[in-house]
């Protein structure tokens, strides 16, 4: 092990670039999958004929496939069918597709956990189904979903590391290149990179815990 040889300014800068890229990819994908996840989860909760069951099947299939397979498929199989994305675009698409399915499930079960009595009360005092959803069920449900949503965001951030298979210049990919220099610097590099992922994710989980304790 040689920490000095591993943590040269060149290596550190290269790893930092990868780290920032990882954060950018995660931020964009978290935002998109949150929007689509809430939308699809709500549509599933609303039990619209044909649409809700169809979305249900789609979510179920995507959720039960390995993300690695989805990344691979979007990057290497879709071009065969004439559908092409940029490298960053295919990474965002893969992460968003997978995490939207995961978040949709969180949202649906969060909405379902809202007391039925509240829905009945709202409906019988004359609110339409849509307004009941918007003003009663969604605000209460979303608050309750915060802890599982944050842990899903943490998963997403960890999963960005799978982009090594498409050579996206994110943190794990750059770490791979650094580690290729010499066997002596493999372990120090792994430690540093693990520390970076840990710092962001642990901070996120502390925020989630604070929000959770404020609720109860």
């Amino acid at each position: 092990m040689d920490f000095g040889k591993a943590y040269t300014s060149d290596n550190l800068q290269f790893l930092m670039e990868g780290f920032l890229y990882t954060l950018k990819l995660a931020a964009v994908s978290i935002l998109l999958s949150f929007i689509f996840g809430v939308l699809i989860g709500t549509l599933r909760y609303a039990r619209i004929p044909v649409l809700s069951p169809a979305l249900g099947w789609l979510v179920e299939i995507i959720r039960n496939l390995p993300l690695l397979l989805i990344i691979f498929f979007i990057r290497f199989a879709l071009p065969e069918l004439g559908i092409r994305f940029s490298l960053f675009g295919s990474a965002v698409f893969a992460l968003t597709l997978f995490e939207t399915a995961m978040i949709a499930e969180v949202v649906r079960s969060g909405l379902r956990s809202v007391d039925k009595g509240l829905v009945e009360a709202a409906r019988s005092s004359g609110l339409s189904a849509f307004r009941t959803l918007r003003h009663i069920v969604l605000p209460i449900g979303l608050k309750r979903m915060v802890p599982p949503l944050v842990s899903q965001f943490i998963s997403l951030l960890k999963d960005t590391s799978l982009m090594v298979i498409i050579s996206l210049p994110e943190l794990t990919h750059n770490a791979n290149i650094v580690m290729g220099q010499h066997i002596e610097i493999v372990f120090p590099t792994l430690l540093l990179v693990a520390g970076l992922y840990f710092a962001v994710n642990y901070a996120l989980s502390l925020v989630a815990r604070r929000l959770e304790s404020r609720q109860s």
Partner: protein
Amino acid sequence: MPDFTIITDHWESYLLGLRNTVLASLLALVGSFVLGTLIAVFRIAPWRLTQFVGAAYVEVFRNIPLLLVVYGFYLGLPAFGIPLNGFVSGTLGLMVYTSAFIAEAIRAGIMAVPQGQTEAARSSGLTYAQTMRLIILPQAIKIVIPPITNQFLNLVKNSSVLGVVAGLDLMYYGDIVNLETYNTTDTYFFVALLYLLLTLPLAYASRVLERRLARSG
């Protein structure tokens, strides 16, 4: 329509990959269950030191990517003169990573057993270890079965990480088949089907178990 000759011509590769995926997931499940139980007991034991070790273990492995844990075995250990192949390092990585999640599930299960039972067992003269083994853990296991089924589902999906380190799993063999067919879409369509063959029944089982537990209270 997908090209079915791909699966009829290469069924041996697909089957080998499927077998290794199942094997890695099962080995990692057993390993992470043992390790996870140990960590959970560490966390709830009445000693500061074990509590700290248990909590640190869980926080570290829940907050770093699985791939890095696998790299720790695959790339990190050879630096100390311990070379491991892709299958072994992948399976060990899965085991260590998943054990953090299983530890949390088991801890939650143990906490759900009323405190009075520990007190009753302790005051009738059982040691701490006996109380855990004979009274608390058997009850906790029942509560913990649905979340662990869910973790097994995650394990099967996550085992695809073996493909990144040439771990001979379904993803890896998909790649082998793909090199011969040059038909990525259809080759991976069958890979996807085989994964769903494993994961969809597990997803269903976990839902049924959860509902049953909710009913029995």
